[in-house]
Structure formats: C-alpha cells, structure tokens
C-alpha cells in the first residue's frame, strides 16, 4: 500500500557475513541450524559413540523403564532404546536426503523444460505429473514398494517418484514467471543461448523459493519413510529405524510401557520440526535481496 522510501546503506557483504547476519537477525533460524547440526553429528558419529550395540539383545533386561544405565529404557528383547534411536538417525536421514536429492534434480530439469519451452512438451509433462499426483502419495508409495519389493532402495525410489511432481510444478511456475522478465530478455541480448539463460539466469533466481520446499520435503520424506516402515514396508527388523520402533512400541504402550514408542517418535518429530524451521532460514541465506 503506502510506500516508505528507505535509504539503504550498502556494505559489501561476503557470503559468510551474510550467513552470520541472517542467523543473528532471526533466532529461530539460529536454533534450527544448531539443531540441524546436532542431527547431522549424531548421524555421522552416533553409531560409533552410542553406549550399547543397537542390535544386542539381553533377555535379562527386558522392558526396563528409563534409568541412568539406559537413558531411554530397554525394549521387549532387552536392546537399549537410546542407542537404537541415535543409530536410526543415520538411516532415516540417508533415505530422505537421497530421495529428496533425486526428486529435486529430476523435478528441476523436467520443470525447467516445461516452464521455459512450453508447448506440447509442457502439456505432455503436465499430464504425466497429473497422473502421478492423482495417486494419494502414501498410497502410491505403498503400491510401488509392494510391487518392486520390500527394500530400502525401493523406498528411496518410491519417495523420489512421488516427490518429482511437486518440484517440477514449483520449478515450472517459477521459470514461467521469469521467462519474460526484463533481465531474461537482456540476457539473450548479451549473447546467451537459451540453455545458458535458463541455467545461469532463471534457475538461480528460482532457487530461494525452492529452498523452503526442499527442507519441508526433507522433513516430509522422513515422515514418509517412517510411515512406510510403520506398516511393515521398507526397513525390516531388527534394523533400528524410527518408524519400526514406534510400530514395535505401539504394542506395548497400551500396557503402560511407553518409552519404547515415545522416544523414537519424539526424535522423529524433532528431526522433522528442525527441517521445517530450517526452510525459511535457508531461503533468507540464498536470496541476495535479503542482504542489506
């Protein structure tokens, strides 16, 4: 509505300066980054640092509530829940990162093509995406994993496939908006071929809004993988994974042994929550307009 003109003083900012600025300005982003760091660390170093072997059973210490020995208690075959929860981080994270990376790359390429060149290619791709999106996502993942086989790779492929239309649509819309922008026409005037214009001018500008989607997606992919293993698809016992652990724990929660299900579920929630918070922060870092 009303315009207030602000006189902006410019400081030539390097990348790290800008990163530090974003973190300072928004404490929530800072929190998200710290939590993200912790999660990454537990994924990388966790399995080496946990007190107990996540697969080691112990018939004596079955179903013990949380104590100083076992921070998260033990499960129905005596395994230490804490070790399993931390170890599971690596698996859940790898699945979601792999799936999201795959769908990001494929979706971006397809979406850019559809958004930039349009025409019949756009129509065909659109029908294709409509078809995939016609399946309720979880249902399609179930169908794919059921058909292709119950392995972790298939979970990754299934999650990636059902994610592609989201990215493709998003990229297509962002490319479409910018296709006729002044700077794109100018880029052609200075001798850039269509591919260069798309790759060097349009796509980098489409990145900031995509960053939010990427991190939301990471969270969602983790939920998806956990959900699939909850119903028995994908990861199989005794591999520690948050979804299976909640499923196993569900049987015992009605009789009061809550720690088996609650801790993995809580960790799952925290991881997804972190990624969701991260989204806005990532966008601010990538967008040069946020630089003062």
């Amino acid at each position, binding site marked *: *509505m*009303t*315009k*207030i*003109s*602000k006189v*902006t003083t*410019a400081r*030539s900012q390097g990348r790290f300066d800008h990163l530090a600025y974003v973190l300072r300005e928004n404490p929530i982003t800072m929190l998200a980054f710290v939590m993200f760091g912790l999660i990454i660390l537990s994924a990388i170093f966790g399995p080496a640092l946990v007190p107990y072997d996540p697969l080691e059973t112990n018939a004596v210490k079955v179903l013990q509530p949380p104590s100083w020995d076992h921070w998260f208690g033990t499960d129905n075959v005596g395994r230490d829940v804490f070790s399993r929860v931390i170890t599971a981080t690596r698996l859940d994270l790898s699945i979601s990162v792999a799936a999201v990376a795959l769908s990001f790359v494929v979706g971006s390429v397809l979406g850019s093509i559809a958004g930039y060149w349009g025409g019949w290619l756009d129509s065909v791709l659109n029908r294709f995406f409509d078809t995939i999106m016609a399946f309720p996502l979880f249902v399609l993942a179930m169908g794919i994993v059921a058909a292709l086989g119950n392995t972790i790779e298939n979970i990754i492929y299934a999650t990636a496939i059902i994610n592609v239309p989201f990215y493709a649509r998003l990229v297509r819309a962002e490319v479409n908006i910018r296709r006729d*922008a*002044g*700077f794109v*026409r*100018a*880029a*052609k*005037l*200075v*001798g*850039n*071929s*269509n591919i260069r214009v798309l790759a060097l*001018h349009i796509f*980098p*500008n489409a990145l900031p809004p995509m960053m939010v989607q990427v991190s939301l997606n990471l969270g969602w992919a983790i939920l998806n993988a956990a959900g699939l293993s909850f119903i028995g698809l994908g990861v199989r016992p005794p591999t520690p994974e948050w979804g299976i652990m909640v499923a196993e724990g569900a049987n015992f929660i009605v009789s009061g042994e809550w720690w088996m299900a609650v801790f993995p579920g809580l960790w799952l929630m925290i991881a997804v929550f972190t990624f969701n918070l991260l989204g806005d922060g990532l966008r601010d870092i990538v967008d*040069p*307009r946020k*630089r003062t």
Partner: protein
Amino acid sequence: MLSVKDLAVSFKTRLGDVNAVRGISFDLAKGEILGIVGESGSGKSVTSYALMRILDAGGSITAGHATYSGLDLRRAAERDMRDIRGREISMIFQNPRAALNPIRKVGYQIEDVLRQHARATRYDAQTKAIEALKAVRINEPEARYNAYPFELSGGMCQRIVCAIALACDPRLLIADEPTTGLDITSQKAVMDLVRDLIRQRNMSSILITHDLALAAQYCNRIVVMKGGLIVEQGDPVQIFTRPEHSYTRKLVDATPRKGESIRSLLPPENRQAAPNHVIHDTVLLDVRNLVKTYQGKSGPVQAVKNISFQVRKGQSVGLVGESGCGKSTTSEILVRLMDATSGEILFDGQDIAQIPSQGFAKNRLRSEIQMVFQDATDSLNPRYTSRHTIAEPLKQLDKLRGQELAARVEELASLVGLPFSLLDRFPHQLSGGQKARVSIARAVALEPRFLILDEPTAALDVSIQAVVLNLLVDLRAKLGISYLFVSHDLHVVRLLCDHVIVMKDGQIVEQGPVSTVMNTPKADYTKSLLAAAPQPPTRRQSV
C-alpha cells in the same frame, strides 16, 4: 473546509521510526482543486492516507491537526471516521482494475457503499447504483452493472472507481495518482471527467501526482512536497514562471514542455553546452512491410500491420503511440527477440529478419543491435552485482577476461556516470537512477550501432529523468549511436529525437521530422495526441 496544520506522520518499522511527513500545513477552500506534487518518497500519498485515517498498521499521526468542517480528523473515533469515509470524503487510487473486487459485480460494489451509508435500501439500491454509473458517463450502464472488473477496460474501471467514490455525494474527493499508468488520451478523459464532476457538484478536491504539468492544467493551487515537507505553495502560473524554492525550480525545469531544450531540463549549474550529434545520409536500418500476426484466444491478432520506415546512421527516431499500438512488438522484432510474420529488416544492407530469433544470440550482429528496457529494476538480474551485469556482454560476445575486462567495466561506469563504489552492489541496493545507468552501461558496452530505448525513463522521477535523458544525449554524440526512442511522452520525444513515427493499431499513422509532425500534424490521431498532453504555462505566459 479542510485545514491542516503542522501535520506529522510516522511509521514504526523494523529499522526504526520513519518520518514520512514532518510538519506540513495547508488549507483547502470549498470548490477548490488543490494539487499536491512531489517525487517518490515526498510523503504526498501518506498525507492523504493520514487524513482519511487509512494508514497501514504501524503508521500514525504523531503531531499537528487536521480539521474537516469542524471535525478533528486526528482524534475522531473510528466509527465517526468510517461514517465520513465515502460519504463526506472519498478517495480514488491508481491502478483502477486492482482497486475493484475482482469476484464481485461492479454494480454490487457500488450498492455496498450506498447501503453502508444508508443512501439506499435493498429495494432501490440497484436503481441508485445505475444512476451512479450514469453520472460517470459510462455507456450502457444497465449492462455494465452486471459486469465484473476483468471484463472492463482500464478506463472503464477508473470510471467505476469514480462512481463508487461519488455515489454518496461527498464534499471532498482525494485523487491519488489516478492517471499513472494510463495512456495520454485516457489520462485526459479521466481528468476531464473528474474535473467536470467536481465542478458540477461544487466539490473540493485534492489531486496527488508526480506530474507537475498535469497538476498545473487541472488545479487551482499547487503544493510542492519534498522529504515530508512543503517547500512551496502557489497557483500554477506562479509556480511555473516564478518558482521561489530551488526544489520547485528543479522540478519545473525537469518537466519537459514545448519550446525548451534538453539541457534546460537540468538545473542551471549543470547545463554545459549540448553536444551536436552527426546525422549521416546512409541508411542504417531499413524496415520494409513488417507484419506480425499471432494467435489470440479468439482468432488471429494483427499486432503490426505492414509498417515501413528508415533510420539513418546517427539519427534518433522517436516511436510514439498508446498501449496496444504495436510499438513494443515492433521493438522486440527489431532487436530480434521475436520473429516477424513477414517483411524485411535491412541492417546495413543485410536482411536480419531472415535470421531466426532463437539463434540470433550467437550471430556476429548481436552486438550491433541492443536495447534498454523500460523497467530497469526488472531488467537487472537480482543475483548479479552491477559489475557482473555490465561485464556479461563483454565476456560473452567480446570474450574479454581479467584485467582487460575490469578496465573496460570501469571505463563504461565512468561513461554513464556510475560511481565505482556502486559496482559491487546488487540491484535492490541501488536507486532508480543508478539502476537506469547500469542498464545503459550494459547496453552500450559493445558499442552497438543501433540502440532501442523502450520508455527508459517511464519509471523514474522527473528530476532523475532529466539526468538520464541528458546522459543519453551525451552518449550518442560520443559514440555515434542511432536511437529508436519508444515513448508515450511527446514532449520528451520532441526534445530528444530528430524524426518521429506515430503508430496506432499496428499501423504508422504519420511520420516525419519532429518539428513538422509536432507543430503541423496532419493526421487526426496525432492532433488528438498532442492536444491530450498537459500543457503547463510557459515562461512567456507570465502575467
């Protein structure tokens, strides 16, 4: 009727308090049309929003008084203000189509206002709404009553907005930049309508605009604002012939009008002699029978219908017309971003229309024909610094690298008057004028022989426009470029160009030397265009 004294408005923002208006005083008599003129950031719009008390959250009147017919506008209760809005004081805004509810019939929108202020009941609301439409001289008011905004043209939408504003017979109408973005002829139609309605109903009005000439034509008195303060008040003739404040003088100088030269747009201390540019006899660009047809929603649309013209080496040709006349399409085709349907474009004898636009980026002629776009903000990649933007053509087409590249970029920066410290800034850190300079530097980096300028100053403040236009004049003398200057502003074209082409509906209506066409126009359309442009009082008109 309206009395404003020491009014101050400020906004709370994340970066602290912004004082948009810092103590202004003026009065408005009954039946008077007052113009508030200023450039962006002057606080002119904020003043009117404050009077109506429709400031954004975070904005408030921090000092002073505003009294309307005895009512203290600053301290009145919200309920009383709501009663006044639309009934006593009304407002119309720029961008009329966006100002209307897109999913509600326009007739209903008028009814809403009538019923809110108890000027109509459920039963007679429709009749009264149609009467309101008749009052703003819309044809077929009964049919228009049921229309949605997207079905109406921009001019019609502005009339609807007026109908809504005047439905309850207010005493004061505030018009906030009502003609920005409209064509010259639409602008005249809207302003004439508003003036007639105001006179008819013996209303008062405040016209807020950045166009000093427009204000001079339609207002009884003018108030000039800068940086939240009033620098001068007076009647139009006095403002134009005997401006007292230096800022007013600067604005008056910068307003392009008949009889002045391009250098006179600048403040007196900056007026060095205007360089002469040489016009050769050789024809650089020869456009023959250019046609562009494309597929619209309901059949083929002929955007350009067989036009022919020539541009000589060193010549500046103006291309004038209103929106939809085909001038933008023509520019796109000439610069080879779009293909023509048929016709020849002979550049230095070679028909470049034959070279498909898809592949032109790699052609050796790419560096010879360049363009400066209308909206500098839109035409700069938000992720590129100015240096990167200017360097790109040099890297891509001239294959310059390293030291050579850096040196050339700095050479171009000084050529366009861009301080070196701004080279590492991003577009959002630059002002409008600075962005325009970067855009021009990029366009002339490869020393093209032909430069198309598509309304390059349309988005700029008048004083910045003066500077940029003079820069263009200097550049063409130094580099010998031929210009095709596309514009809707006839006065600017008169100052800058040697030759002018007038287009309407895809055809050339008239073309010839600037002085001939502007002083003795032959076509009716040209005559109406010239008549529609606001004519401010010239220095010779001093009483």
